[in-house]
Structure formats: C-alpha cells, structure tokens
C-alpha cells in the first residue's frame, strides 16, 4: 500500500495528501518523516488507531526524550573527540 492509498483509506482530506508531497521535498529527514507518516496512516487504515489510548499517546513522548538524550550524548562525544577531552 502506498502512503497515498493509506491516506485515502484513512479519509484524510486532500490537504493531507498534499502534505506527503511537501514532506518528500523537505530534504535530509524526508525519508524518515515519510516513513513515520506512512506507518501511522497504514495503522489508521487498518483500524489500529481506533484503539488509540491516552497512554499510547503519552508513550510517544518517550521516543522524543530518547531521541534528544541520544543527540545530546552524541554531540558531547563529538565535541570531546574534536577537542581531545573526555565527554
């Protein structure tokens, strides 16, 4: 199933379909974003999101916190490598 098909099945308006075209042109993170949207919309199309719970929504926050934590650690390590110090 293409992302466009998933969008149509989810009943997202034409503006939502245009969103995919925009996302594809973002640049660096476009593939990751497109994949995230496609995965989410395929879940919608399959009806999985019909059981969306508050806990599941808040759990999405963990992915943000984990990502930021990993980025900060990576930047600290990169800084240490560049200047020859311990992170």
């Amino acid at each position, binding site marked *: 199933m293409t992302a466009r098909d998933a969008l149509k099945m*989810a*009943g*997202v*308006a034409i*503006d*939502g379909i*245009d*969103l995919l075209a*925009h*996302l594809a*042109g*973002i*640049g*660096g*993170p476009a593939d*990751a*974003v497109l994949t*995230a*949207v496609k995965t*989410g*919309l395929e879940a*919608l199309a399959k009806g999985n*999101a*019909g059981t*969306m*719970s*508050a*806990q599941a*929504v*808040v759990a*999405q*926050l963990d*992915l*943000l*916190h984990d*990502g*930021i934590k990993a*980025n*900060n650690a*990576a*930047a*600290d390590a*990169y*800084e240490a490598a*560049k*200047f020859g*110090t311990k992170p």
Partner: protein
Amino acid sequence: VKHIRMIHRLSAIASATLMIVAATLVLTSAGCGASARTKVLQTTLTVTNAARDAYVSWDAAHQREIVDAAKTLDESKAKLAEYRATQAKVVTLFEGVYRAIAVATLLKDDPTSLANLAAASGLLMVELHSLTGGKI
C-alpha cells in the same frame, strides 16, 4: 486571504498542522461527531509524530554544526548550552501537544479539549518553523 497567504509561507509539516488546527477549530465550533473528532485526533497524532522525528533529526545535525563552528572547547560548550535551552523549550511544547492529544482522547465530550489541542499545536509549529528557519 491574509491567513491563507501566511499558511503558504510556512513549510511542510507546519502548514499541514495549521490546516488541522483550523479544521479542529471548525469542528469544535460546529460540535463535531465522534467519528470526525477521532479522525482529527488521529491525524494530529500522526503529524505530531512526523514533526517529532523531523525535529530529532534536525537537532542532531544542528548540534554537530555548533561543535564544528566552535574554535575552542569553551565556546563549544557555551553554544551547546545556549542551544539546549531552546531545545528544552521545544521539548516542553511537544509535551504540551502530546498531553493535549491524550486529554482530548480521554475527554470525548469536552469541546474545549480540542481547542486546547489546536492552541498547543499552533504554538509548537510556530516555534519549530522559527527555530529551523522554515525546514520544519
């Protein structure tokens, strides 16, 4: 027309989210049905997740650029600390949106929860757009 022009200036995710915000406000004022309300919440969650992934990706590259641009360790640490204050603000805004979605999911009959969600989404997307120079 002014609002439409403003939306066109914003990029991908921010534009889409503002459309969702507008749709949310319309649905809120019209007293939308359960199905339409659920669709708004699901779509907002999907777009917010996409914005989160885009931000995490941009954040990694941006921090590396800060270190690359620094000439000394002290300068690097100072610039990273300065940026991370902004990063904390963005994380707080994301938390606000996710919690607003969660609240709107729980309070199915409360129309103000959608309005609160729309406000939180709008704040986040304006901040992301400003911070990333329109890349998000």
